[in-house]
């Protein structure tokens, strides 16, 4: 499935079993075909850049991976096992965390309650499950502090009081502080300042070094070319390129995205 460029393949990665394997996945919303026959493998310990124009199908693909929508056709394997039930809970239980652009935070809940939403810590009183509020407060306060949010942020306050960038930082913090195997970042640096942006990118590389699979979705090809191990390009719901970063320079990358893979850049053979 992987594209060979000038005869080069990434032996180290190819010899491993993929952690997530997407096989011939298609998805349509009514008459609109969002994804067509996409197959792609993701390996542990790599940082994959998922790029493409608006409406290329990037978000749809990660929504399938994170269990929000089931594919119309095709199969998804996690750690060799076929996924039959698509639900975010299942994905989270498998250790897959997705930082999405527009969703993931309930504005009416406190910072602490948002942090633990869906996996609330409990303490039993007379055998009944109650929220462990002390743990919620202490853990989330530590995370918020470690990720450099304002000192005035009170974790008991509604998260609506945070700014857009702070909310984004919070989502990233939440994703990386739970023990996960896969972190998907959908345009993680939107709304962020230059400094915060560098921090997020650094974090993505760090997570990869810790052995996690990081799938990084972005429009910013300069950024992704700098940090990714492999770049997958989607165009109109199809995968047009899947190559190691080293096999491609920025110019190739720009050209492919611009031309939608119809005219592959010189020296690059499309999948």
């Amino acid at each position, binding site marked *: 499935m992987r594209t060979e460029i000038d005869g080069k393949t990434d032996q180290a990665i190819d010899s491993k079993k993929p952690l997530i394997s997407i096989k011939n996945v298609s998805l349509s919303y009514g008459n609109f075909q969002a994804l067509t026959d996409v197959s792609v493998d993701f390996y542990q310990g790599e940082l994959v850049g998922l790029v493409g124009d608006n409406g290329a199908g990037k978000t749809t693909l990660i929504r399938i991976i994170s269990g*929000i929508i089931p594919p119309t056709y095709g199969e998804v394997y996690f750690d060799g096992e076929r996924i039959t039930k698509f639900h975010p809970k299942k994905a989270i239980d498998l250790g897959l965390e997705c930082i999405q652009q527009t969703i993931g935070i*309930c504005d*009416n*809940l406190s910072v602490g309650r948002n942090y633990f*939403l869906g996996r609330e810590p409990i303490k039993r009183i007379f055998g009944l499950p109650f929220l462990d509020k002390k743990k919620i407060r202490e853990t989330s306060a530590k995370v918020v502090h470690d990720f450099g949010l304002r000192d005035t942020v009170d974790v008991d306050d509604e998260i609506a009081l945070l700014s857009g960038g702070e909310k984004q930082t919070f989502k990233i913090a939440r994703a990386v502080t739970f023990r996960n195997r896969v972190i998907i970042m959908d345009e993680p640096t939107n709304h962020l300042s230059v400094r915060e942006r560098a921090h997020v990118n650094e974090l993505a590389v760090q997570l990869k070094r810790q052995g996690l699979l990081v799938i990084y979705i972005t429009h910013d090809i300069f950024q992704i070319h700098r940090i990714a191990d492999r770049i997958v390009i989607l165009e109109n719901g199809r995968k047009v390129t899947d190559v190691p970063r080293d096999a491609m320079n920025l110019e190739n990358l720009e050209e492919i995205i611009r031309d939608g893979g119809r005219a592959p850049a010189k020296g690059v053979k499309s999948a």
Partner: protein
Amino acid sequence: MRQFIGSIVRRHPEGITISLVVLISLGFAVITQGSWLSVGNLQSISQLTAVLAVMAFGEAIVIATGEIDISVGSVSGIGALTFLGLAPIAGSGIALLAALACGILIGAMNGVFVALVGIPSLLVTLGSLFLFQGIGYAVTSGFSFAATNTVRQQFVYNAVGGGGFAEVNTGVIWALVILVVLQLVVFEAPVGNRILAVGGDAGSSFSRGVNVGRIKFGVFVVSGVLAAFAGVLDAAFIGYADGSFGATMELSAIAAAVLGGCHLAGGRISLIGTLFGAFILRGIQSFLIILGVQPQWYILVVGLIVVLASLADRTLTRLALKK
């Protein structure tokens, strides 16, 4: 200063309702020269408040998820009729269980249509409102069900609103017990966190692994069973029920919740506030009766209160969330 008010409103939405209770209590007491505040009148108000509050608690939980249940009045009617219809035949214990079962079933039906089929709750429960009111009229065919003397002697009958305990109607005790339980469930338990999350942002909750459908189904069942129980509490107190029992009660229940600081858009509720909201409505009703105003005016007052409360709610929420 604004920040201080903001944080109070954010964390204690019932504060304003409670201040209002104190204000109108004083006002009504003065205007009626003390008779509004007499022991007898307060007993009557507290019994009426208890019934309305039990129903409004269920409503508040539904509102917490961003939905609405306008069938609670009809469901309370079904609960009351089932209870009084069966009690003389099967005893009040069995009758109570049957009434609660009816509430659960109707709630589950509403829940299935909202959570699984995806029909807006306003439409689903509007249908239930008419359907069960119709059934109420049909089974009574213009007559009423009354508790027999034997039934009135039974322990269960007295324990669910028919009798009192140290001058306090048992319905009041039930309302307080239910308040404590629900308060723990909504604000201290994981499921409560998810109920509020669903009302705040259903899509985000789903992406965090919350089973949105199950939560919505659950709140309608709770609302159904509480509405039926409210019907039982009132029927046992009055001793009879006809086909119109519980009619328009849903309006008062919604008004009590809104007045108590529940946000109709979902995600933000106060159960303690709802209790006081119910008290204000019943207090006003009693005030109008003492003044000799025709009871029909009560509905007009409820309407005005809901409009004003929504307006105040919007202003205060905006103030509270100002950065």
